[in-house]
């Protein structure tokens, strides 16, 4: 009995994970080699993969996800800057911290609906820009195929920077302050203290956050794009991403085989990133 007891305690976990992940991961690979109609279909080898890899829309979606990666340096720079400013602990800093974290509390679909209205061509943002005589900056943020993805990127930066700020600040607050104090007494200014003393000690958390950002940009932007792009990755296909490609193939075109092939490729890439996350976290713990 006592030897069985531990297994009784973990049994619910094993059942739950087994039900959802267990067969699914295996079947995802299986489906990607089949032409599924409904719940099963004939084996067709690599045809799903060949079809997907020859489709321009797939590559366009991948390209969009990769383009989103460009936002990461900006995202990290902004988060670092705000975290370092908060770390000064000037009067009222806890209030600033509370406000700056708010973007991360709001649900993505809600914020996307609000931003979609703010950034309409005749919306409030452009009105303010025109009032400031910055007419050349009053672009068609949502409606123009050349700009829409950059607007999505801006929205992601706006929200994820809140998380970055709080993560970086938590790390800063856990640092030994004697070094910074010594530098301050030596007459080092804010910038010198930040650049030479604080940032080098934050390498671990910056690496960790970077990997999280890569995972987000490649596989967790569905909600932003679904709302801003009107459910179709619009205008045209300008905000189409891998997740939406899978979603469309699965629910709109009823081609689970195609969706599975894309999922397998995304899964393999994710595995690589998860491994990277482990490496980075282990290094941070040391």
């Amino acid at each position: 009995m006592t030897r069985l007891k531990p297994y009784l305690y973990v049994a619910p976990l094993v059942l739950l994970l087994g039900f959802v992940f267990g067969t699914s991961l295996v079947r995802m690979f299986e489906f990607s080699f089949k032409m599924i109609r409904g719940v099963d279909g004939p084996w067709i080898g690599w045809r799903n993969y060949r079809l997907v890899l020859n489709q321009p829309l797939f590559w366009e979606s991948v390209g969009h996800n990769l383009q989103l990666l460009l936002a990461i340096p900006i995202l990290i720079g902004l988060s670092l800057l705000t975290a370092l400013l908060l770390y000064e602990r000037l009067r009222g800093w806890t209030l600033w911290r509370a406000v700056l974290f708010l973007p991360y509390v709001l649900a993505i679909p809600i914020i996307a609906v609000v931003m979609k209205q703010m950034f309409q061509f005749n919306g409030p943002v452009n009105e303010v820009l025109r009032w400031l005589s910055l007419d050349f900056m009053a672009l068609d943020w949502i409606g123009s195929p050349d700009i829409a993805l950059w607007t999505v990127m801006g929205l992601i930066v706006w929200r994820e920077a809140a998380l970055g700020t709080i993560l970086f600040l938590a790390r800063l607050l856990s640092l030994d302050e004697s070094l910074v104090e010594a530098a301050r007494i030596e007459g080092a200014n804010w910038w010198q203290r930040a650049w030479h003393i604080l940032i080098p000690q934050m390498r671990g958390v910056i690496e960790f956050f970077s990997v999280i950002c890569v995972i987000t940009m490649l596989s967790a932007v569905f909600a932003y794009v679904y709302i801003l792009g009107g459910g179709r990755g619009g205008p045209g296909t300008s905000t189409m991403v891998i997740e939406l490609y899978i979603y469309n193939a699965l629910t709109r075109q009823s081609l689970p085989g195609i969706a599975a092939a894309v999922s397998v490729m995304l899964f393999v890439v994710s595995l690589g990133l998860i491994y990277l996350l482990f490496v980075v976290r282990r290094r941070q713990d040391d």
Partner: protein
Amino acid sequence: MTNPRTLVADGFKQAALGAAALVALAPTVFMIVTALKPQSEYMVNKVGLPREPVLEHFRAVLGSPEFFRWMGNSALLVTGTVLLSTAVAALAAYAIARMEFRGRLTLLALCTALMAVPPVVMVVPLFVLYTQIGLISSYHGAILIYAALVTPFSVYLLTTFFRTIPAEMFEAAVLDGAGDFQILTRIVLPLALPALLTLVIVNALWVWNDLLIAVIFLQDDAKRTLMAGIAVFQGRYNNQIPLTMAGMAVASAPMIILYIIFQRQFVRGLMAGAVK
């Protein structure tokens, strides 16, 4: 003591933080201010404060039964998921942290790995499986998926926390004749209350805010969640922006209120949950 140069520098820093705070707050302010404007006023006054604030949009949203149905559906999924995943995770974490058995570390490593698997990857096989066994558009089907997606992280967090509880407490309890289940419910869980609260917040927020699983696995109109409802709502009232904003304000109110009350736990929880 403070020399004028530090004073100027501090002024710049405060101004920079103020600007960042303004950007962070702008959408929320726009949402609330716009919701209070009559439709006709928004057409001519998009940025300023409402000249004569009206509550008609809030009344329309709060008076529509579907909004509350969506919220009720989301609340049901959140409750079900949180209860299921917390119970499953607490049992497993206790065994992993306190018992010796084969596969203990493998299980923990598996949980850590599953934490980072993007949900979208699981969608296709689960959709086919659910079509096969008739679980599409069922609450319990969706709760199982949500629970499986959030439980690995819960196990990881609780195991880490349970390991920090001093061994003497367990030895004393065993001497008093308490069994494992009693130790778990009477000693470990009460001690782990802060970690549990963090966990409840992360998991609840994750389920409440999810759109992907909701639009795929709960397609039935009657089962629609708040986030999926929002997508429908904004499409339907495309040109009635003040009304749309009132809807968004009502939809975000529960989380904003909880954030103001439980700020500390929110921040801690979301930081811990960032890995997912």
